[in-house]
């Protein structure tokens, strides 16, 4: 037999790889929601499909294609441009929910990128996790807390499809939306938590103050008055009129150094301090003004 035999380790490995792909096959779907080549998606539950936000160009008239060749309509249930994820609701069709990996992905582990951009069958490429990084910041204030980079080939239409581990469990969601041509994936723990919020609210709430800032060194005299080892803060270079920041009394020239008692050294810490749970609530913003630390209370708005 020239096909795989049982007492051959390499053949056993090959068979196990096929089984991993087969396990995720049924929960990898085709997502037809744009003009050009369809992309891919993952069945998050019986009636919800998780995919990449950038492949969803329309909110209705979306078609989902399944492993058995059948197709069903879907409509947008929620989207989060910041993490490039969108959730679609199936109409009159039930999907096989995907099984997620419970452990975080590690550098060097085997992964497969899967996609179903056509109804011809599952497509796959092999690689390893090359890097685990984040946060990654974009224009418009978007920030991806964590991402996986792999060396698996991102074939056209793989966006929204699963990155699976050697056992066929979902390790991440493929995306090319942030850096076309690169193999990036949103880690499953982050993707699943975004999906859960999208399922409930249809969007991800993020806090908004109405300021523009740049990181600066805190003058040494002010540093000693701060009473902690913090060398950088955010210099406010503009404050939007009528914004929450203006109403709370923040001024151009203030150096923002903390929120609710935690230090804020840079943009990432600021973004991290303004999660959806802060929207509508007062927060204590610590600034250095005229060399002196002082506290300002601002009610957080919601970023549209």
């Amino acid at each position, binding site marked *: 037999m*020239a*096909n795989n035999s049982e007492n051959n*380790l390499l053949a056993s490995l090959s068979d196990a*790889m*096929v089984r991993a792909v087969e396990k995720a096959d049924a929960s990898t779907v085709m997502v037809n929601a744009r003009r050009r080549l369809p992309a891919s998606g993952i069945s998050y539950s019986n009636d919800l499909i998780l995919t990449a936000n950038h492949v969803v160009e329309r909110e209705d008239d979306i078609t989902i294609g399944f492993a058995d060749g059948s197709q069903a309509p879907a409509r947008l249930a929620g989207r989060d441009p910041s993490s490039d994820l969108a959730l679609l609701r199936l109409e009159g069709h039930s999907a096989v929910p995907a099984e997620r990996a419970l452990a975080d992905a590690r550098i060097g582990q085997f992964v497969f990128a899967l996609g179903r951009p056509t109804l011809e069958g599952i*497509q796959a490429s*092999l690689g390893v996790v090359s890097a685990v990084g984040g946060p990654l910041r974009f224009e418009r204030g978007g920030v991806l807390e964590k991402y996986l980079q792999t060396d698996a080939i991102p074939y056209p239409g793989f966006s929204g499809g699963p990155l699976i581990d050697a056992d066929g469990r979902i390790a991440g969601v493929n995306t090319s939306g942030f850096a076309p041509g690169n193999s990036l994936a949103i880690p499953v723990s982050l993707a699943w938590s975004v999906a859960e919020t999208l399922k409930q609210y249809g969007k991800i709430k993020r806090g908004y103050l109405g300021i523009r800032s740049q990181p600066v060194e805190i003058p040494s005299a002010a540093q000693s008055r701060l009473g902690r080892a913090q060398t950088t803060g955010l210099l406010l270079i503009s404050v939007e009129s009528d914004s929450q920041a203006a109403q709370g009394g923040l001024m151009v020239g203030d150096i923002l150094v903390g929120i609710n008692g935690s230090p804020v050294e840079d943009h990432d810490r600021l973004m991290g301090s303004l999660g959806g749970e802060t929207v509508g609530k007062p927060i204590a913003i610590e600034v250095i003004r005229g060399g002196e630390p002082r506290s300002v209370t601002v009610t957080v708005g919601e970023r549209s």
Partner: protein
Amino acid sequence: VEIAAEQSTLTAYLSAETDRMLERVRKSLVQVRNGHHGAGAGILWDADGWVLTNNHVIGHGGRGGNRKVILENGLTYPAQLIAQDEDIDLALLRIDARGLPSALIADARGVKVGQLVFAVGHPWGQLGVVTAGILSALSSAKTRDGKEIPILRTDATLAPGNSGGPLVNAVGGVIGIDTMIVGGDQGVAIPSYLAANFVRETREKSKMASPSAQREGYL
């Protein structure tokens, strides 16, 4: 520490097994020179001098072209062009030699997405180069006259000079003939069952069945 030792044994074992398997595959890999500037890879289809390669490797020299087949051990033979099929980009050559280390031909009908594959060829003229990957898709391509043919797609890196060489499975069985030009896609192989049909039909037509014709059956 114990776990690390076990893992190193496993990877070392896998590596050694891969090495042995590819050594055998390399013996059935040949160079095909078309008498002009072109060169590619080819496969010793059986022990009696039948060599399979891509049609585009053969070039336009017609039946009388000055073609050569060079074995892994360096022996060079003049090659006779027996048949060509432009649709599936295959050509069959014959050299005057017996007892050759022929390739193991697998039945590509049983292949599955995700399985390990290895491509062996002469990319950019470098001899006997191995690249590894998986079977990425079972797809199809349209020929110039619109006929649909099944193809195998792989994420193993292929380059000019891989053409005509084998895509093998984990035990060294040929599942495809590496071919880059169909549909303009990279990493495309013609399934070995199409190649086997082509060889069988050619032999039936020319009534030149060799004593080892039973080797054409799928293994």
